[in-house]
């Protein structure tokens, strides 16, 4: 909090000072409550799992070992998984936005007569669906099964939740007068959308882009159901397999084997390591998106 200079604080009203102090303490509280378990995951991923599950790892790693990470990265499938997921996530998000943003814009136009009907038409699909089996049969008949396309084109290509969020944003943040002024200048919907609406909507584009991207990133169900060729599997499936292969006999020596003491011992380490390996790339991304949430950044961009 170094950058809050003394002068500034002095210049403030007493009420605001109290308010600021409250904010600072509350933020610190939230920070520690949220950060500790994450810190725990990090130290647990490099500690001896026996110490972890007997509660001896609290603030510092104990019994340092990188076995978990070795296990994860020794598996060549991880790199294939990264590559696949990267492609599915980036290309998929691009398609998602391409379909969602214009549709949201259209649905935000008050003069568009079919908007209420279409809105209902979209929302209906949030609730009613045919279930897994008909969807699987559809994908099979469209020859999407066991191809990368099934990650791009599926029932979530247009995510109605994101559509609604975007529409709400357009409705509330693109002044109606702006469009009227634009049409005066001979601007079509296409042009208005791409030159005015989009630049004004960086924040919401960043948000739903992130929503879609993380959705792709965490998606493992599509791979599970529709993909048979292991070379097409996304990262999450690969990591899940690695996780399971270490979590031997978690239900007991169910199938009559002897428990694998060796692998079992390190299961938890791999478990925590997997979290780090799978989420690091999305974490790195976040600061780049964050800047769109700064106060006033949008208005500034339009003026500039």
């Amino acid at each position: 909090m170094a950058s809050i200079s003394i002068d500034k604080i002095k210049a403030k009203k007493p009420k605001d000072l109290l308010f600021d102090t409250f904010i600072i303490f509350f933020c610190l509280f939230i920070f520690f409550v949220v950060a500790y378990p994450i810190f725990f995951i990090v130290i647990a991923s490099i500690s001896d799992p026996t110490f972890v599950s007997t509660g001896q790892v609290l603030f510092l790693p104990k019994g340092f070992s990188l076995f978990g990470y070795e296990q994860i990265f020794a598996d060549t499938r991880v790199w294939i998984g990264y590559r696949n997921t990267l492609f599915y996530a980036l290309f998929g998000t691009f398609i998602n936005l391409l379909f969602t943003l214009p549709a949201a814009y259209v649905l935000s136009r008050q003069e568009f007569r079919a908007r209420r009907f279409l809105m209902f038409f979209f929302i209906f699909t949030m609730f009613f669906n045919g279930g897994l089996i008909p969807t699987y049969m559809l994908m099979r008949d469209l020859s999407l099964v066991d191809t990368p396309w099934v990650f791009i084109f599926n029932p979530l290509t247009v995510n109605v939740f994101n559509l609604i969020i975007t529409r709400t944003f357009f409705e509330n943040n693109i002044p109606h007068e702006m469009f009227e002024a634009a049409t005066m200048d001979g601007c079509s919907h296409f042009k208005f959308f791409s030159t005015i609406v989009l630049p004004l909507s960086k924040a919401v584009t960043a948000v739903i882009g992130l929503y879609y991207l993380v959705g792709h990133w965490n998606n493992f169900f599509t791979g599970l159901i529709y993909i048979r060729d292991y070379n097409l599997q996304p990262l999450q499936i690969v990591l899940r397999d690695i996780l399971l292969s270490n979590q031997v006999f978690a239900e007991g020596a169910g199938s009559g084997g002897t428990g694998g003491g060796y692998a079992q011992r390190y299961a938890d380490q791999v478990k925590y390591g997997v979290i780090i390996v799978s989420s690091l790339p999305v974490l790195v991304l976040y600061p780049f998106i964050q800047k769109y949430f700064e106060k006033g950044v949008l208005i500034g961009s339009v003026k500039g």
Partner: protein
Amino acid sequence: MIISLVTIVACSNNSATEPQETEDGKTILTGLILKHALTKEVAEMEWLAEAEERAGVEIQWEEVSADWDQKKGAMLAGGDIPDIIIGPGAISDADFAQFTGVFEDLSPLIEEHGPNIQAMFEEQPLTEVLSTYPDGAIYGLSKYQRFWPETATMQFINQDWLDNLGLEVPTNWDELFDVLMAFKEEDANGNGDPNDEIPMDFAPIGEGGFGFFQPTVLLGSTGMTIVGGGGQGYFLEDGEVKNFFIDERYKEFVIFMNKLYANGLINDEAFTQDYSQYQAVARGEGDVAKIGYTFGWEKTDRFGLNIADQYQTFAPMQQSADSDDEVSWTYDYNQLNYGVNFAQISSQASDKEAAMRFINELYDPEVSLQVLFGSIGPNIEKTGDQSYKILPPEDEEMDPGTWKWTSSWADNGPMFISDEIDVELPVDMQDVEAQQEPFKQVFENLDQENDVFPGMMLKYSQEDQNQMTLVNTDFMNIAIAKFGEWVTSGGIEEEWDSYVQQVEQIGLPSNIEIIQTYYDDYIQQISE
């Protein structure tokens, strides 16, 4: 528009494909193996390549080790399955009933191309019973694993602690109570802290019923023979199907458990910990053991190399010094050595004869041994015409169990380990055998015919199966929750009658009746 699209979808159908061949004339098949997550890629298994070679096939494998239930539904309902499916119960009898026509009846193929399977049916007639569906067809093949012990759950007690405190191995529940009390009150492990001993611990109890390594084994003391650790409570007594959840003897057992819990003798996390915590706690800290009395598969697996020597298995206890019940224990031999539906062929398979030739290869005793333990060479040494020695792991740090599961399909594969061949087992199996000793007596006295519930041999119709599942789900919800509640907080004596009434109202008696009918049919069938 929607309707027309629906019609298109509904009308399209997949047609059987023409058999494809490799350049050197081998038939190309597709296969799916439900393997253990630990198991290496099948492409790296020498024995498998050899078996495919001999059968003149090349199989493109899809390897599944997780979430099969979810994947299976869509695959079967879509009618979109590979030529061969391998795995323990990958396809269930319920699937054969529901997805009629998806799987091929193997009987004619076995007759023509399955000499090894025929040999298994001859040597181990039970495998034929297990493979035969009620309509007489064979859709899924069973296995015979031969070497696995009579029970998966053994009880262990810390002998060092007993010696430290000058105590004897308990022979009945009262003595067990006294021993556990001493473990708790005194510094049994001698590390100076009298409070770090956990007298008793057991594996987490699933919401779907009891399983291995759980305290239900103590029901044996009351004369009941449970199977597979207890499951949903069905057991057999004098040829009659019963359920222990509504048995007075179960009530006594729960009262005893409550007495242990109320005195702080059971790990207070026993009901909430997961399996890895359960394992970790038992490994102690360095040379200091933490657990006095517990259940597991084998000593080193349960306690780790450091402290395994402190423990020993001991014979099943009596309920009290003066009880005259014939003591029993959970009997798991069938579950561990036989299995149903390990291999099936799609009715859409491009070349069913080739598929059968390959499956027949798996049932060749020498191949089967490799299915179980790994390839001859790295995993098995052939010491004579019909004799083999299972080799220790290449990596010295690895235990033989993990080595086996890593190297091959292991217990998940179809196999016929013929009684004719000589096998020198790996150390872990020898240890299991040795540690099983105290339990032998009980199993020798066991009336196999009338007191062991042959759960896996009974094949229900789809309707009965569905009916029973519904009842069992509701029933388990109450029974398991009540078990936990009664053990931890007591109250069984007041609530018992209304509990029994509630469970009966849910439909438990009708389930028992259904099972009894199937059991009687089964007995009649095998006696013919």
